[in-house]
């Protein structure tokens, strides 16, 4: 697929260059990059500025001197370290549950033909389209009657189960791309289905599993709504909910808010940047396959 892309670009690229002004294209591309990246850069700058600069020199991106006070303050005064740990636990726990059930379901869907399979897959896709917000009220009541409100396991369960449809769609593509001969060879050697999945198939799709894990992790890390309704105890809050409670009636402490926001943004943006090839390929594959 990559070679195809390069091949096609090589054909259509120079031709377009004749008709359109190439430098204009670069100009637009760079301008768009600025629009998308600048807010985060400004946030970093605001978090490092001395307090006087906030009002006196809001346009200066390079602080007159670097002031780490808000970082110290955010970790000392607010329980943000606790929130970080919570976010990490929920995101990882949820992703692990999703991965487990999605591997099984996508294997079943990839390796078997049955009546209504296509309809079933479309059905899953459509159900998944409905935003979580639409069902927070019944979910809250259901979890409450199970005694899972204000528990970490309750939120992890919601995250994990909520990702199964997407995960199944996502991994089915990877299973489909593995030749069935591999299964048959394993079966001939007397391996069970689970052993085949675990020892033969999964090792060949590590990039796909990693991409799904990261996508799910980022999604849970960034969730606010579900965590806000499920966890009413301050100690259990994830970062997003914790940061929201930091916003006072008026957001006077720019530096503290910027810093807190960055504590949330930086880990995922770093992961995202390093692994974006996998992620984009994964997202695009999901979109194109149907």
């Amino acid at each position, binding site marked *: 697929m990559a070679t195809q892309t390069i091949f096609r670009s090589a054909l259509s690229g120079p031709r377009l260059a004749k008709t359109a002004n190439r430098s204009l294209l670069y100009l637009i591309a760079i301008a768009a990059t600025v629009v998308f990246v600048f807010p985060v850069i400004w946030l970093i700058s605001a978090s490092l500025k001395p307090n006087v600069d906030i009002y006196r020199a809001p346009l200066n991106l390079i602080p007159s001197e670097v002031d780490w006070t808000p970082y110290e303050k955010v970790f000392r005064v607010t329980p943000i370290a606790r929130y970080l740990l919570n976010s990490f636990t929920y995101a990882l726990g949820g992703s692990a549950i999703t991965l487990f059930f999605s591997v099984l379901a996508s294997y079943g869907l990839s390796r078997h033909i049955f009546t209504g399979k296509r309809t079933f897959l479309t059905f899953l896709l459509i159900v998944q389209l409905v935003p979580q*917000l639409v069902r927070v009220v019944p979910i809250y009541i259901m979890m409450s009657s199970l005694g899972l409100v204000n528990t970490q396991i309750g939120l992890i369960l919601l995250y994990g189960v909520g990702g199964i449809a997407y995960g199944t769609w996502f991994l089915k593509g990877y299973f489909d791309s593995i030749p069935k001969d591999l299964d048959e060879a394993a079966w001939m050697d007397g391996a069970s289905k689970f052993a085949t999945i675990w020892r033969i198939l999964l090792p060949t799709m590590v990039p796909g599993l990693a991409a799904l894990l990261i996508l799910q992790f980022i999604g849970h890390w960034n969730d606010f709504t579900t965590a806000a309704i499920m966890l009413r105890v301050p100690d259990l809050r994830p970062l997003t909910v914790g940061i929201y409670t930091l916003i006072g009636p008026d957001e006077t402490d720019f530096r503290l808010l910027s810093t807190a926001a960055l504590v949330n943004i930086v880990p995922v*943006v770093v992961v995202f940047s390093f692994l974006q090839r996998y992620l984009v390929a994964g997202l695009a594959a999901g979109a194109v396959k149907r």
Partner: protein
Amino acid sequence: MTAALSRSTRRLERFAGGPWPFILPGVLLYLALSIYPILYQSYLAMTDMQVTSLSSAQWVGLENFAFLFSDSRFLDAIQFTLLFVLITVPVQYTIAFALALLVDQKLRGRIVFRLTYILPLAISSLIIGLMWRLLMHESAAGFINALLEQLGIGTIPFFSNPNWARFAIFFVNIWSSVGSTMVFLLGGLQTIDVEQLEAATVDGANAWQRFFLIKLPLMRQISGLALIFMFVGTFGIFEKILALTFGGPANATFTIGFYMFATAFGARGAWGTTAGLLGRAAAMGVVMFGVILIFVLLYLWLVMFEREEA
């Protein structure tokens, strides 16, 4: 007897050896937390359930719906949410298509460009709202207003003027989600047959003709999918509103999702809403689901229509 037994045994074997032992555990759990809540919500919407008395809810029939459709705040929220969708979805689609075409070109560093356009996808909606609240802040500390002031244009009351507040949330929503639409459309562009474009060029088609006569029609299916995702996603907007405008000023950016959340769980006493009314919030959830269902059915109908034509 033995025949019946062996038939059921065979059926069991086929079941155990078939796809269902693999599919069912995950899918049943998933449906229990996706389809069941939607059904359960239609029941809840007919009760007066409150957060303080989960077990002693009374059946009230359609009272909650009757209240909602005579509640001007609710009708305004629906109206604004639909306006939001109708304005931002076409704009977002157009920008996303332009960006997809751009990074589909053989530009040096297009991987970097592509990465930066999808950067907002990695950031929490709530944090995005908070970040832009600081950037658009009306005081001298807000970057945009400081810049406009410097340029001699004067400041913009992003959060105290209803129309500017609406502009602000429209802009921020497009900024944050245009990348996912771009990825979608880029995936579609990359499946277009090169030879077809080649042939068109040989026949003398220019870049515009190739776009409108070949690329755009071939992108119809994927565009439909991208549009339905945008419609549904935008219709459920809540977290960005909460962090950016808090529904204000004077309810100018009050969406149905925000109203539902505030009614059920409270949002620092959003104006005039009473928190804890789960039955009424469930009724709002039913209305939201109904609107989404209409979008989805319309989309499916169009897809079928297309298939019959072909």
